[in-house]
């Protein structure tokens, strides 16, 4: 029988989230710097994405880059989970190199899960407001 290695799942998830973040950031950057034009620079000189512009993209039925409203919700919430998990457990790994007490390491792992869950809860609330509505309403749009 093979021995169970406790850090294996964390290691694997770190790798998988890293790959998704890489993909996600390429899409995010392409979208914000090539596909969309920020604000209404020509009219008011504003060079940022307005709340209205973001809400239109996130809740519109018109697909962009092949993603509809639900697709964007899944894409961004998965990206947020990946960033939070990869970041917080990355910090735990950094600290683990310098801390040997297993109780402290265990507590840090729990803290990382808690922070990831908190970040997701806040992220879902923020995403809903950015999309100008409810996440569940958006989910009716189909992928």
């Amino acid at each position, binding site marked *: 029988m093979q021995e169970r290695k406790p850090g294996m799942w964390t290691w694997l998830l770190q790798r998988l989230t890293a*790959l998704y973040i890489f993909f996600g950031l390429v899409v995010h950057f392409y979208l914000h710097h090539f596909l969309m034009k920020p604000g209404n620079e020509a009219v008011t000189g504003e060079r940022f994405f307005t709340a209205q512009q973001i*809400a239109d993209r996130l809740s519109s039925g018109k697909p962009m880059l092949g993603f509809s409203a639900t697709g964007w919700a899944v894409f961004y919430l998965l990206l947020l989970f990946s960033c939070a998990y990869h970041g917080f457990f*990355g910090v735990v790994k950094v600290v683990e190199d310098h801390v040997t007490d297993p109780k402290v390491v265990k507590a840090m792992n729990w803290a990382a899960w808690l922070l990831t869950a908190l*970040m997701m809860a806040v*992220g879902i609330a*923020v995403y809903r407001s950015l999309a100008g509505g409810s996440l569940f309403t958006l989910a009716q749009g189909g992928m």
Partner: protein
Amino acid sequence: MIRIAKGWLRETSLNFNPEMLSFLAHRITGLGVVLFLFGHMFSLGTRMLGPDAFNRTMRAYDSPLFHFFEWALFIACVFHGLNGLRIIAVDMLSLTRKQRELTFWVVAVTAVLAAAAMLFFFPTVRDAVTF
């Protein structure tokens, strides 16, 4: 934190080579991006106070100082991402002997993308280059 930073400095001075520097840079950029995550959520969270509050916050970020921060964030993300891919490639494809070469490629590609990204993050540079 100070103890950890001192440990990194000691290890880097004892093993001063490109791989050690890339290890250090990977950790520093990683920690920087984690800190940014909190700031990003806070900024986007102003939308919960209404569209005007969000637009005011974004307008405040449209300044040379924040353009510089965005550019630095871009560089940190590119380096951390490419170096992470290098680590995965070395692990999975048994490329340990090619580590140094790959490290130089990561730095070179990051430098090229950082230079090109100035066009996107600094409106003055973009206006000067665009005729």
